[in-house]
């Protein structure tokens, strides 16, 4: 039996593209994304990534993000 390797990942959110739709919040299995609390120049409360999260680079947030605002990386 193989040991379960825990993936470690992170994402980058383009604050200016984000429209604060919160779709990624909902779908992230690790609840790693939340409201940044700050308004971008288009007037949206953009999302932000919790650095110290469990993110496993599953890519779901990027797949669902309508604005293509998220890029996902794996370490």
């Amino acid at each position: 039996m193989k040991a379960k390797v825990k993936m470690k990942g992170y994402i980058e959110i383009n604050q200016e593209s984000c429209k604060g739709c919160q779709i990624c919040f909902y779908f992230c299995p690790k609840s790693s994304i939340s409201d940044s609390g700050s308004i971008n120049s288009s007037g949206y409360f953009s999302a932000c990534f919790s650095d110290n999260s469990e993110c496993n680079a599953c890519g779901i947030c990027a797949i669902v993000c309508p604005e293509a605002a998220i890029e996902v990386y794996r370490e």
Partner: protein
Amino acid sequence: MTIKTVYKRPKLLKERLFHYCPGCGHSVIHKLLCEVIDEMNLKERIVCIPPPGCSVFAYNYLDIDMAESAHGRGAAVATGIKRVSPETIVFTYQGDGDLSAIGTAETIHAANREEKITAIFVNNAVYGMTGGQMAPTTMIGQKTTTSPYGREVNKEGYPLKMSEILSVVEGTVYIERTAVNSPKNIKKTKKAISKAFQVQIDNLGFSMVEILSPCPTNWKMSPIESWHWVDKEMVKEFPLGVIKDRIKVKKC
């Protein structure tokens, strides 16, 4: 430690903010189209016909050749292009108002002629661009600006199922209905789009992907509510899945 990129902004998506509302399905579909066209290496020989509709500005986002169509006439325009250059991959991008109301005849007849074109049919159950009027695909009881008391069967009819209708039309080769309201559905949509393009590449005939797509603004919902509503309401009227597949038949 090496860093691997798991997801990057699609190469064919121009650097430009979408004008779409937050949570809108059009944006997701645009992304998918960019990915598929890139992965299938079609940029050099693809032409898209965007419609009047919220996606009228699609050419601001997709870095491929595009020509705007008159409302509803996408299938006829695509026919013209395709017949002149059969080697070009031609697809229409059409809303439900566009394809299933004013464009009914053009779509059915292009399909019946077995035109080697692909329709990306974005069904968001309303006329988005013009402010949320009832579409042929609007749900029974759904309130819109032109069905303010809810759509009534007796006067306004039933949600029109173009995919099912087109499946009765013999010339159609591949029709699938998908949705862009969850990671799984989005992935399926991407696959369906590839498959539809492949049908065209293989010169088999008419292919269409009907995509159920949230319109939070005109449904008067939050983005996430609208994504759920696709499952809760739309899928009941518009079941997902492959509706017609004649690929094998056509190949032999």
